[in-house]
């Protein structure tokens, strides 16, 4: 329960979660590169730093780029667990 709550806080506001499976490479609006900043962002936010401050540190100034990281949910992590299990099962059958 605790874990779910924290994930909501970081990636709320998504209607169709399948829309962005993995962090987009660029900002949808201006085209600034944001993909390479995701891992540091999420690590620091999970460690309790305020998200706004982390974004400032990463040099993300415009609100179009800031929402990219703020509103993102990394769905691919959940999917990959599923695929990994399936592959192991298949190998056992062989």
């Amino acid at each position, binding site marked *: 329960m605790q874990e779910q709550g924290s994930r909501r806080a970081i990636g709320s506001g998504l209607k169709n979660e399948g829309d962005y*499976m*993995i*962090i*987009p*490479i*660029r*900002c949808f609006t*201006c*085209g*600034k*590169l944001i*993909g*390479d900043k*995701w*891992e540091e962002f999420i690590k620091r936010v999970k460690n309790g730093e305020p998200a706004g401050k982390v974004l400032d540190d990463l040099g993300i100034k*415009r609100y179009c780029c800031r929402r990219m990281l703020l509103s993102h949910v990394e769905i*691919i*992590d959940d*999917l*990959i*667990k599923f*695929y*990994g299990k399936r*592959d*192991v099962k298949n*190998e056992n059958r062989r």
Partner: protein
Amino acid sequence: MKVQILEKNGDSIRFIIDGITTSLANTLRRIILSEVPCMAIDDVMIIENNSVLHDEILALRLGLIPLKTDLDSYNLPEECECKSELGCPLCRAVLILDVKAESKERVVYSKDLIPEDPKIAPISDKIPIVKLAPGQRIRLEAYARLGKGKDHAKWQPVSACTYRYMPEVSIDYERCDGCGECVNICPRKVLDKSNDGKVEVRNLLECILCRDCINVCPKDPPAINVNGNKESFIFYVESTGVLPVERIISEALKIYDKKCLEFLEEISVNLNVSKKDENN
């Protein structure tokens, strides 16, 4: 025309151009956005991909990765002498991606893209392309080429290119009683009160011409006036990192020059033709 550079840090630059018209300023902006070429992955040959992302999504993601551009040693494919659909070493660069997740999950980063020409490499090593579950594999060849922003945003060398009028704030000291309403309301803290209670302009460049100070002034007509100088512009250009900003601006001006020359040539050819018609 006078140019004054206000600040330059890393990939962005802010400067003032004084003494040009709006149409010229907008021309510069639009050429930077849509005509200055840069490198991006265009065609992708997927040999193997059993990751959770479809081939198309994967290719789109690869296309968006900004690549360091070498404008001097590459040609635009439509201007290249090879005239080939596949391209030649002068108009395309190959990058190879071959990653397999063995027993653990693995993130495929942009650093796993191995460029054939080391000058055409992703600007950042840490861009996640896809994540692989154990046993999944990606093998592909990506072809990068020069392109223009008007064809696809991935070929846009800038992530921001804006200009605005140079602000001009004038205060009528004969009627201003220094009430300070305008100082308090200014969202950009342009105005400030001096020691003797006079309202002063402190950060003129920060003014966004919102005119809140005029509306709040109790005097009628207001003792403060704000206007944009329509012949002076504050430009802000922010490169995505593919090219240095100075290069983007100089390249834009070169393209403008070329367009003007082309136009002049075309017009003089047509004039000569019509003269000949008259003589006949």
